[in-house]
């Protein structure tokens, strides 16, 4: 088919008047012929200009409203621009950060809940302790030669077979040493260990003695400084003594 014949088909195709066979032949030719492709483009644009021979008519305003209303709903297919990718990355980062923060906040919330539960138990114990201490029999321990300013007070709660002991002014114990409280019972010679404790920087400490002997007299209480963790029988010097 000659270029002239192709041009004639292109003229018909520009106004959609070519047959399917002619259109197929035209497309094949245009793939390789730049000159005919240029002519075909000119004919297409010429055909479009024919539309301007018609009088313009203003469409109802409703059409414009419909078009603009429907625009955002149209599925646009632009390539993902760099700033869209960046924005997506930032949003993803924010989302991940928020998720981590949320997770951390939940863990903190769980820890706080546990702390509240623990404090409630402590408060209950403290209430019981206060109730026990009010009207309880007490024993005062006095500081000995190595710690003349030290003192302690023992609140006995025989009904619960326990005692609360509060120590003050003891010298801070070394890391390899512990203070140990002893009970000297009337029914046995050997002192009975009532617990091991360490003091804080101010020399203060507290101790709850469980299984307090109630079926015998307590002749005295004493505190010695022993190897860390305590011993079966007192070996160290006495820091506090009371009866």
């Amino acid at each position, binding site marked *: 088919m000659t270029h002239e014949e192709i041009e004639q088909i292109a003229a018909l195709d520009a106004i959609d008047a070519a047959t399917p066979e002619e259109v197929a032949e035209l497309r094949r030719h245009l793939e390789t012929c730049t000159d005919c492709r240029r002519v075909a483009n000119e*004919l297409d644009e*010429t055909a479009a200009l024919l539309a301007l021979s*018609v009088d*313009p008519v203003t469409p109802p305003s409703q059409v*414009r409203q419909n078009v603009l209303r429907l625009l955002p709903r149209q599925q646009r297919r632009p390539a993902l621009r760099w700033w869209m990718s960046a924005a997506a990355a930032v949003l993803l980062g924010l989302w991940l950060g928020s998720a981590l923060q949320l997770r951390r906040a939940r863990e903190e919330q769980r820890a706080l809940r546990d702390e509240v539960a623990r404090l409630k138990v402590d408060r209950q114990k403290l209430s019981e302790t206060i109730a026990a201490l009010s009207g309880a029999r007490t024993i005062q321990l006095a500081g000995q030669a190595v710690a003349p300013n030290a003192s302690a007070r023992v609140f006995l709660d025989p009904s619960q077979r326990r005692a609360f002991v509060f120590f003050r002014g003891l010298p801070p114990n070394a890391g390899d040493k512990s203070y140990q409280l002893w009970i000297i019972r009337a029914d046995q010679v050997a002192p009975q260990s009532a617990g091991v404790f360490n003091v804080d920087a101010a020399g203060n400490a507290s101790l709850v003695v469980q299984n307090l002997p109630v079926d015998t007299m307590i002749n005295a209480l004493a505190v010695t400084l022993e190897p860390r963790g305590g011993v079966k029988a007192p070996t160290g010097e006495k820091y506090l003594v009371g009866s």
Partner: protein
Amino acid sequence: MVPAIRSACLTKHPLCDAALAGNTFAFGAAYDQYASLLYGLLLRIIRDAEDAQEILQETFLAAWTDARKFDPSRGSELAWLISMARSRAIDRLRSRERRSKREEEAARQISMLRPNVDPGGNDPVAFREIRSAVRSAMQELPDAQRSALELAYFDGLSQSEIASRLGEPLGTIKTRTNLAMKKMRERLAAFRRT
């Protein structure tokens, strides 16, 4: 005059720019520039106001969606829009089986629409200049050539259908159509981008 016209309405593509930018406000402004021109064409082809409005809406929505497909090297934005609108209208026209009824209604529809014809307000000056040139070129065509061209362009008739309607050989109709397009191409060269 011609260079100004070309720079004003054929070298720019405000509709596609607005669509690519996602700027609905600018898209609306471009709609105002083209809508009356396209609607007049659609009414001339489809001769049904409701269908014409539907196709007009489809065309602009398609332009928003497919703006990236617009290739300025192949023609102006105006030509691209017209081509989309006309193709849709011709497709619908050809899919109809009530052509005779449509033709009966044509005169009534057009006369009803006359009061809406707006040769001034929504018709940019540049388009009026092109319109004047296109009409002059059309008027200069021999009647037989112009008739063949209009039956194909505005009525969507195939060359065989035109030959049958006019009682002329198919070859004659093809020659007339070709000659008409050749002359229009030459006369309107100043108004093309290609």
